[in-house]
């Protein structure tokens, strides 16, 4: 419902803070998804975390979706939670398939560390500025990124 989106405080404040940061907004089943421009991700998250009245201080989750074969191929998905207002927010950043990379959120949310390592491990997306970007679930010498759509479920034989 567009009317709901217009009256959403978070979106309004984010647009006031940085109008160019918001690429696209969607709503489905009462959940708001905001697509953020990749270079604005860290600033937007800092704003969402520190702005009184929003205070999205809890990063619940980081994951990714592979949209192969369309481009930009990857969406990195962040789920934020405001412990104050019990509101949830989904942020998305898109990155291309050739050399997928987004900025690391570790400086803003320390707990992004393991989440981003998992995304790197299973999707092969680089996180620029991550302090310890190594495989976390798969063995160190594993070839390929299992959660990519062009990776067969039974693995390479």
């Amino acid at each position, binding site marked *: 419902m567009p009317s709901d989106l217009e009256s959403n405080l978070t979106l309004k404040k984010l647009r006031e803070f940085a109008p160019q940061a918001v690429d696209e907004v969607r709503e489905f089943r009462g959940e708001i998804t905001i697509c953020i421009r990749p270079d604005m991700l860290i600033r937007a998250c800092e704003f969402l975390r520190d702005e009184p009245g929003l205070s999205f201080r809890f990063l619940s989750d980081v*994951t990714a979706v592979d949209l192969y074969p369309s481009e930009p191929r990857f969406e990195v998905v962040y789920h934020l939670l405001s412990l104050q207002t019990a509101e949830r927010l989904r942020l998305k950043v898109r990155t291309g398939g050739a050399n997928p990379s987004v900025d690391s959120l570790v400086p803003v*949310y320390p707990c992004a560390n393991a*989440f981003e390592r998992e995304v790197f491990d299973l999707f092969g997306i680089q996180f620029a500025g991550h302090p310890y970007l190594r495989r976390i*679930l798969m*063995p160190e010498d594993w070839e390929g990124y299992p959660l990519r759509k062009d990776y067969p479920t039974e693995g390479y034989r």
Partner: protein
Amino acid sequence: MPITLEKIPGQEERVILSMGPQHPSTHGVLRLVLELDGETVVRAMYDIGYLHTGFEKSFEDKTYSQGITLTDRMDYLSPLSNNLGFCLAVEKLLDIEIPARAQWIRVLLTELTRIQSHLVWLGTHAIDLGAMSVLLYCFRERETILHIFEMVSGQRMMTSYFRIGGLALEPPLGWLKLVEKFVKAFPARLEEYEDLLTKNPIWLKRTVGIGALTADEAIAWGLSGPSLRGSGVDYDIRKKEPYSSYEKFDFKVPTRPEGDVYARYLVRLEEMRQSLRIVQQAMDGIPEGPIKANAPHIVLPDRESMKTSIEALIYHFKIVTEGFHPPVGEVYQAIEAPRGELGFYIVSDGSPKPFRCHVRAPSFANLQALPKMVEGRLIADVVACIGTIDIVLGEVDR
């Protein structure tokens, strides 16, 4: 090359100790790398993935209904919570209404799951710290709960009892008698655990002030559930974002400000009491009615109508052979699992199989705070800290 701690240039050489993955107090196959100065931990790093089975990839190859069986196997100590999280996420995607009776039974069983999960935690946590007999007491009560699970679902652990749109079957006659027996007996049992531990001087020495995290640290490190509430943050998804009619139940959310191992112990004990209250209320007020949603294209028809109605037979055939087609979209559903925020993020492309299903595992997030908790402490405290965050490696590695 396995994970290790690089030497910091200019610093003297220290002992690197590899703890696990076959260490009995790492609760499965967790490996810790500890840099030691004498008996003090200077730096710590965890190494996981030994149980990685690619559940998220498997989800993409199974229909939504088949996916439920995978969720049991992640956090194998609280299978019904996982079933619930997954079903709620898919139901949100489908936008279907669940009958009150099914919701009540779901609440009752997930709270029993919470109690039995906390019982395993208490028993293993105590045995790690040298209190052997508590484990035997806890497993005695857990057995009763597993018996209830077996009665309703046919399985003690891999229940898969909650289905998309409701429950698999109407629970058998007489199951509530067993629940009632448990509810009557359990408060006295809790007293027993408290007698054994709460004022025990050895227990206090091993837990008070150990692994302390402030509220800000706990939030920054993504802790959730009892671990977060042990640091004084009052956030419980059942209260703040109620699902499955939790808003109709009366219970308190225990918190403690200290943030140490002892505080988290007290929080979990009190949670068991509160869960028992919810079980009592749910038991007293289970409404009559259907246990499955009125959505024939999603929910399997019961056996009788399948044999007598051609429509039901067609739906049955379609659901089993093909699955159902949810709308295109994406949802994130979080529930308060015994270990914290369990979230399912499902992306649908309209086909009968999820395009992407991601699990936000509370154990995986909680584990990140471990190095912070143990650095500067003794090796013996590491064991207390692993116990207090209550990880299940099946869920960490998925």
